[in-house]
């Protein structure tokens, strides 16, 4: 699944940038360049070749040589630029996903157990507000309140633990709202099931019923949604990174777009698609651990494959 998705993404992004007006050669050389030098560079870069040839060359470079080209602005390899920005993005993604899981899932569970209570209603209202809030606005508010007003956290950078708090909160908040709602509805669905009644009829404690019988069954949608959020976060929190001036992948892509640095944008999108696909693959594997029925399916599919290969 990984390869077709990446080829598809490559095609779309390549086509879009191909159709965008503006001459890369002119961007690289600046406004002072003579038409001759521009023409020479166009030929050198292969910009006069037909679309199919250009796209084919791009695919060849990306998939067979792992080369995303060089940026127009710094002439550095795009892969190096991305790898330089990646640790920041990964750090941000990891901590914010950890934060939203550790807070979001328990809150969702409690909300489900106490359905329609004051607590549940408050949580749902807050979740709605958090989903509706634009990230950059939340980021700015956090900076205004916690850095400028209270002076508790630095307003930019991403090196010390203290400086990581605000960006992680900003990234986690809207996703956390989604996770809370998903956990709640998934738990509500499971709590209604007969096997929960059965567990009660066994004389089991309510806390054990929630942890052992209900949560295990409610996990699949929760894993899915957290996986999705992780994929999105790995793609770079474009707005948050800009607000907090973090040099992550999102920021890199924004800069690339501003400068019309096509290889950088293309590379960034390819990287995002790749990160997303890899996360999805891991989520699929996690499913099997959460649900024996899915594991059995995988096993059957595996066996069938073995049979066809043997033929």
């Amino acid at each position, binding site marked *: 699944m990984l390869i077709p998705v990446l080829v598809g993404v490559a095609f779309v992004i390549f086509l879009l940038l191909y159709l965008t007006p503006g001459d890369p050669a002119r961007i690289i050389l600046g406004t002072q360049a003579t038409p001759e030098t521009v023409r020479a560079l166009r030929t050198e870069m292969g910009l006069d070749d037909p679309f199919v040839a250009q796209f084919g060359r791009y695919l060849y470079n990306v998939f067979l040589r792992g080369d995303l080209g060089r940026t127009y602005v710094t002439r550095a390899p795009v892969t190096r630029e991305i790898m330089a920005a990646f640790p920041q993005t990964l750090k941000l993604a990891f901590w914010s996903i950890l934060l939203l899981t550790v807070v979001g899932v328990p809150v969702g569970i409690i909300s489900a157990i106490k359905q329609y209570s004051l607590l549940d209603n408050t949580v749902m209202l807050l979740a709605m507000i958090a989903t509706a809030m634009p990230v950059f606005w939340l980021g700015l508010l956090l900076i205004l309140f916690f850095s400028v007003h209270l002076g508790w956290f630095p307003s930019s950078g991403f090196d010390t633990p203290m400086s990581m708090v605000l960006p992680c909160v900003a990234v986690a908040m809207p996703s956390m709202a989604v996770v809370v709602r998903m956990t709640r509805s998934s738990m509500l669905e499971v709590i209604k099931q007969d096997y929960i009644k059965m567990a009660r009829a066994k*004389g089991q404690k309510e806390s054990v019923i929630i942890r052992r019988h209900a949560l*295990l069954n409610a996990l699949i949608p929760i894993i899915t949604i957290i996986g999705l959020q992780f994929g999105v976060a790995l793609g770079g929190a474009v707005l948050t990174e800009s607000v907090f001036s973090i040099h992550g992948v999102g920021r890199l892509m924004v800069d690339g777009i501003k400068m019309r640095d096509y290889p950088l944008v293309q590379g960034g999108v390819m990287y995002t698609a790749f990160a997303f696909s890899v996360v999805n693959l891991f989520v699929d594997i996690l499913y099997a651990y959460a649900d024996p029925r899915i594991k059995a399916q995988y096993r059957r599919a595996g066996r069938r494959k073995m049979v066809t290969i043997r033929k």
Partner: protein
Amino acid sequence: MEEALLDIQDLVIHYEKRNGAVRAVEGLNLRLKRGETLGFVGETGAGKTTTALGIMRLLPVPPGRVVSGKILFNGENLLDKGEEEMRSIRGGKIAMIFQDPMTSLNPVITIDEQIAEMIALHSGLSHRDSISRALEMLELVGIRRERAGDYPHQFSGGMKQRVVIAIALACSPELLIADEPTTALDVTIQAQVLGLMKDLRRQFSTSLLLVTHDLGIVAESCDDTAIMYAGRIVEYAPTAELFGNPLHPYTRGLFNSIPKITGGKGDLMTIPGLTPDPSNLPPGCPFHPRCGLAVPECSSGIRAPLEAGEGHYSACPVTLGGRR
């Protein structure tokens, strides 16, 4: 009179909704003697499951609420028990089997663990001992030990119900409440499961409250039978007596509704009308709007069941030969 294992007195259970109460159980009286099987028969919505959940104290509260009455188990009122004490009774002394075996087992836990959970809760055995006891239970219900580590989705419906029975009887409860245990199964599997329940019940000397709407099952396996209608017991008698001499018009209607193999291909007999809406019960005898024998007095006042013979009670004075 010897003390009954289970003695329900004037039980009233309502579901409280915004627009009034749904009167699911209205003054129910029921006795189950130790070691016996009581068939508990009624149409869908008559309040059978509500009663069963009420005994287990597993009613969803709210909206469910036990308004009044007593549920005496070994002479002690279950409604006075604290949650902690109730937990040790559930599973340990009173076990319950639910209607649908397909959904009664937790899909992500292996079946030996699900049986062992019950054993560990009530016997204080270690996890390992609970598992080995669970394996014995599995063999008892006719499932090979090798399958103990399997998940519920790897079993057929009949086998799942066997597992459920193994769980229910794992701690040798004094009372087993089976809520339509065979309704979701094929007829052939039904017979197997019922036979298994009968054998094990004897082996563990467990009394059985069999909730069902299938009169055939009742005739087959119950000592006594109680007929429930709109939250009340309308007739209660030893099974043979009830089948030979049904007194209440509703009971008679039920028997007439069973197609007879010798009866030709005419229309099925039915009881006219529908069971009353439990949030809007008719005054007087709840059955009188559908009853062919109703007299004007039927629409006022509720009468306690009258004794019509040895252990045979009926709530209908009309068919008792005018003994009002």
